[in-house]
């Protein structure tokens, strides 16, 4: 049995895991989580309808060619309009009430939206349950990547031109600086030379990223959405970071702690909550846009309840009320998910189409692997809540303070 484990194709498992780290799923989850973080992490709004906002974006770009017969680029302003309207519909009746009501209404409205767009009645507009296809060509032709090629993230790979090499090295340097700073802040002890520690941490991180990059490669078709999407995620992350450093963000955090106190200090709590809900929704709308551009199609069932809750899980995993948490959380979420999936699948093959210990078979059919993985996500979330409720990047000190 042990020998079987050692025979597994570890290179492939590693490649799948690391590629999932930066893949399309992690990218569109990250954008959605950045938006959810504004609502849930900072303003304390329990928005369970993030999938609805994502659908707003997806359908906006889908409908440009399918229904409006206009240029694809109009999809972006239309998406923002959809998200604002959707946010207003959600917010107007509920934001004056207690937080629970928002949760109920958001989850219901997101479902209503999904059922509406997949209904037969509106098939002309939204394409019914088949969705909409054939709107992504403009986007695909604009991005400078070849569909037929595979792209490696390793800077010195032959597939990359010299410009790409320099850009990738620059990107890695920024990432290493960032990682170095976090590592130093977390692990350096009193009396150590912090500059030295940070230098070593940065160099080590750079080396680590370089090694990882040799494993990461994507097909040209999805590489387009990945590159554009991560750039978008970085911009939106910076946008939220700047907002939360500003007095506006301070009011939002105040509302999360105690609405009444903030109201007594002369802030219109209702208006701020509405702004947070809509801003978070508009950010999430870009997640839907990027996902549908990668797929080249919009399907209503890609925006169901589970997407909302997976995004929430990913955000909590990374740490709410932290921009870094909302970006790294989804990466880890999909990394872990795809590791579990590939690992169990290869184990399943290696052990002769079953997984079992001591004669007790708990997987005898390859379709069961997916369910086991789902179960593991649930277990992961439970363990996280028990042992690290603040997430990976969250602040333990903050967590220890009681809510009121």
């Amino acid at each position: 049995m042990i020998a079987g484990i050692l025979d597994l194709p570890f290179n492939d498992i590693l490649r799948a895991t690391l590629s999932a780290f930066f893949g399309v799923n992690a990218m569109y989850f990250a954008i959605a989580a950045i938006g959810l973080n504004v609502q849930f992490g900072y303003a304390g709004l329990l928005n369970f309808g993030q999938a609805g906002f994502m659908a707003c974006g997806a359908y906006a770009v889908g409908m440009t060619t399918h229904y409006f017969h206009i240029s694809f680029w109009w999809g972006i302003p239309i998406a923002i309009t959809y998200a604002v309207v959707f946010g207003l519909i959600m917010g107007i009746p509920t934001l004056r009430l207690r937080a629970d009501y928002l949760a109920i209404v958001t989850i219901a409205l997101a479902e209503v939206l999904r059922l509406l767009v997949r209904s037969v009645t509106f098939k002309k507009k939204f394409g019914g349950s088949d969705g909409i296809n054939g709107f992504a060509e403009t986007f695909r032709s604009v991005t400078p990547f070849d569909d037929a090629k595979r792209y490696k993230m390793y800077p010195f790979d032959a597939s990359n031109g010299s410009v790409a090499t320099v850009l990738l090295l620059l990107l890695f340097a920024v990432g290493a600086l960032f990682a170095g700073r976090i590592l130093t802040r977390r692990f350096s002890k009193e009396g150590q030379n912090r500059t030295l520690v940070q230098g070593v941490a940065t160099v080590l991180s750079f080396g680590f990223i370089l090694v990882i990059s040799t494993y990461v490669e994507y097909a040209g078709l999805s590489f387009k959405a990945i590159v554009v999407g991560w750039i978008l995620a970085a911009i939106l992350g910076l946008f939220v970071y700047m907002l939360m450093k500003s007095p506006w963000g301070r009011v939002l955090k105040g509302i999360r702690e105690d609405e009444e106190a903030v109201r007594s200090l002369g802030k219109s709590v209702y208006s701020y909550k509405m702004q947070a809900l809509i801003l978070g929704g508009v950010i999430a709308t870009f997640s839907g846009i990027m996902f549908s551009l990668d797929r080249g199609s919009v399907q209503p069932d890609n925006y169901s309840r589970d997407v909302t809750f997976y995004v929430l899980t990913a955000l909590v995993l990374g740490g709410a009320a932290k921009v870094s948490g909302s970006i790294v959380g989804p990466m880890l979420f999909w990394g872990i998910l795809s590791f579990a999936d590939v690992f169990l699948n290869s184990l399943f093959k290696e052990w002769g189409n079953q997984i079992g210990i001591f004669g007790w078979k708990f997987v005898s059919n390859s379709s069961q692997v997916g369910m086991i993985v789902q179960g593991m996500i649930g277990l992961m979330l439970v363990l996280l809540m028990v042992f690290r409720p603040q997430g990976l990047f969250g602040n333990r000190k903050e967590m220890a303070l009681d809510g009121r």
Partner: protein
Amino acid sequence: MDAENLELGADGGETMTTELSETARVARAALADVAPEPGVAKPDPIMSAAGVRRSFGGITAVDVERVEIQRGSITALIGPNGAGKTTFFNLMTGFDTPDAGSWAFNGKSLEKVAAHKTAGMGMVRTFQLTKSLTKMSVIENMKLGATGQTGEKWWNGLLPFRWKAQEKLIEARSDELLRRFKLDHMRNEYAGTLSGGQRKLLEMSRALMTNPQLVMLDEPMAGVNPALKQSLNQHIKGLRDEGMTVLFVEHDMDMVHDISDWVIVMAEGRIIAEGTPDQISTNPAVIDAYLGSHQGKSLLEDL
């Protein structure tokens, strides 16, 4: 020797309460000729209410026929539990809406004015259960209090150059207030790590960040130890000396006696008496409804 010291101490205490500041003397002189009866008109009211009624189901929580608060004075609002003092606060500040009546601040009607707008008009309140924003630092709590911040609009928030200068001024003012309330050593700590008394101080100083004309304090002394009460007393007197008007709810009669220029007594939603602290403590209606006939005596005395 000891007896002498004791007497000296008593004397010292006496002078502390009798030695009035200039503003206190002005405030008391202005109220000297006001008749001690419920709903009496004041020479210069900053806030007035007429016919304000609020009932919850069958219970009438507040039924105030007339009341005026004198500008530049410290007015105490006392009364038994359930008398409607906090509800009255909520009604005046827009946190709750009366079923009937009119009320005004600085002559401007506050009907249909939302709670968050009253702070901008110069009227700020604190809460009976302290509301410190626990997961924010003390200084952030303070800075949140400032009104009219440009950076509180999200599009301005993205452009630091539009709010950085104002932020510096706000921070300086926050630090000054923190020093005055002796919270400056906790400046960068989370508000959740403060003690109960410190939270009261923080809430009060945060309220002052709105540059109010009228400060409404809901039981500022509840759960505060005697030494801190003394300094809170001084702080509240200080507010009046700076030209602010203070209206506060309190149960501690010593404190009410010590600092207030005027006392309003509520019971069962109505105002049953008004007057200077001395007039109030001898008013039979107040003794019946609130103080009790054993006022000033030890609880053990009767046994």
